[in-house]
């Protein structure tokens, strides 16, 4: 790794001046752009989390060794590996190329990433369930789906809820980056403000992201305590 230390040293001085430009944060002059970007990030978060969860549950069942036949297991595991290997931004680049610029590409990216995250951890939880409960449900004559709903779901429900809430958090944070490659969200606004040297606006955006993540963490803590 080549680091030009003289340049870095000059950078620190320059950096000090840049850093000073970040304060005080300016919420007002670009507020319309900021609000639009944040709203887009929130909508992307909602749709991608719901879509991603809806898809990750069947994938997790398929990727659980104790439920799925071998070919299905391998296929679902492959989906999980691909989804988890590539950073969201890389997927977003491909999706933007396919679906065009805008929040839809970002939403699909986040949904795809959700599958990898929730799918893998949920599959591990399913594999750790008590097999006697599933066996008892099948013994009462229940179908495969009833076995899942009665023998497996009650056992993995707390984990599923926890993962879902955590993923809402992650999806919001990630939605703030995807704008850099044109996939919508607050990231685009942030990128623009940095390009135009409007550092006070950028600082405002960063603070708002931190604030929303804090609120998210607090709310998910409340829901988790209420539900369990």
């Amino acid at each position: 790794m080549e680091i030009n230390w003289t340049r870095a040293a000059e950078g620190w001085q320059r950096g000090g001046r840049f850093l000073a430009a970040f304060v005080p944060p300016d919420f007002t002059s670009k507020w319309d752009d900021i609000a639009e970007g944040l709203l887009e990030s929130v909508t992307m978060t909602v749709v991608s989390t719901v879509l991603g969860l809806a898809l990750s549950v069947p994938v997790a069942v398929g990727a659980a060794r104790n439920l799925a036949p071998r070919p299905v297991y391998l296929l679902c595991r492959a989906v999980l590996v691909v989804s988890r290997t590539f950073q969201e931004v890389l997927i977003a680049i491909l999706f933007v190329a396919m679906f065009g610029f805008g929040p839809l590409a970002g939403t699909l990216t986040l949904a795809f990433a959700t599958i990898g995250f929730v799918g893998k951890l949920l599959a591990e939880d399913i594999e750790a369930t008590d097999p006697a409960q599933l066996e008892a449900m099948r013994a009462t004559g229940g179908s495969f789906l009833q076995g899942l709903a009665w023998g497996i779901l009650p056992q993995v429900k707390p984990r599923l809820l926890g993962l879902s809430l955590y993923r809402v958090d992650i999806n919001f944070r990630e939605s703030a980056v995807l704008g850099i490659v044109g996939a919508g969200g607050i990231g685009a606004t942030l990128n623009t403000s940095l390009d135009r040297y409007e550092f006070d606006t950028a600082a405002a955006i960063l603070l708002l992201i931190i604030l929303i993540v804090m609120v998210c963490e607090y709310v998910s803590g409340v829901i988790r305590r209420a539900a369990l």
Partner: protein
Amino acid sequence: MIFQEYALIERLTVMENALSGRLGYVGFWRSWFRRFPTTDVAEAFTLLIRVGLSDMANKRADALSGGQRQRVGIVRALMQRPELLLVDEPTASLDPKTSRQIMRLILELCTERGLAAIINIHDVALARQFAQRIVGLRAGVIVFDGPPNSLDAAALTAIYGDEDWTATLGHGGKVAEDEHRSAVPEVERLAGLA
């Protein structure tokens, strides 16, 4: 089917566990939304009253004691309206008193309903006390078949192998608790109530 270690759905309520016995007769979505036919719910209530759990219906299964859990297991099995009850070591993790209560309950319910039960059990004293017919298996071969009082030391040796059986067969209830499991793992005893 009544299971060893209960095999209840621990995080669901007693009533849901009882109703799960009807899963084979109810469509997926009805079971998902817990919309069981009223006759099923009525039957579940009746059975819960019968086994003495009527005020536990909305408690979660993991909040119950071992004996209570096995009662829920019995209710779930009876909810299927079986013609034959399969019982796998129903007392494996229960204390001696609760074990007797559970065995007596199974016996009573079978008599009430004219039901046959096949019980797989290693507790010789319990089998002698409650079963009407005992079948001893060793490595899958029947080595004893007869009424409980004809089960003697020779028969036990044939089933389990050499051991001092006098205390086990003693007068009344003096049973050494650590005797239950046989030294030979493939040995199985079957006690039939007919």
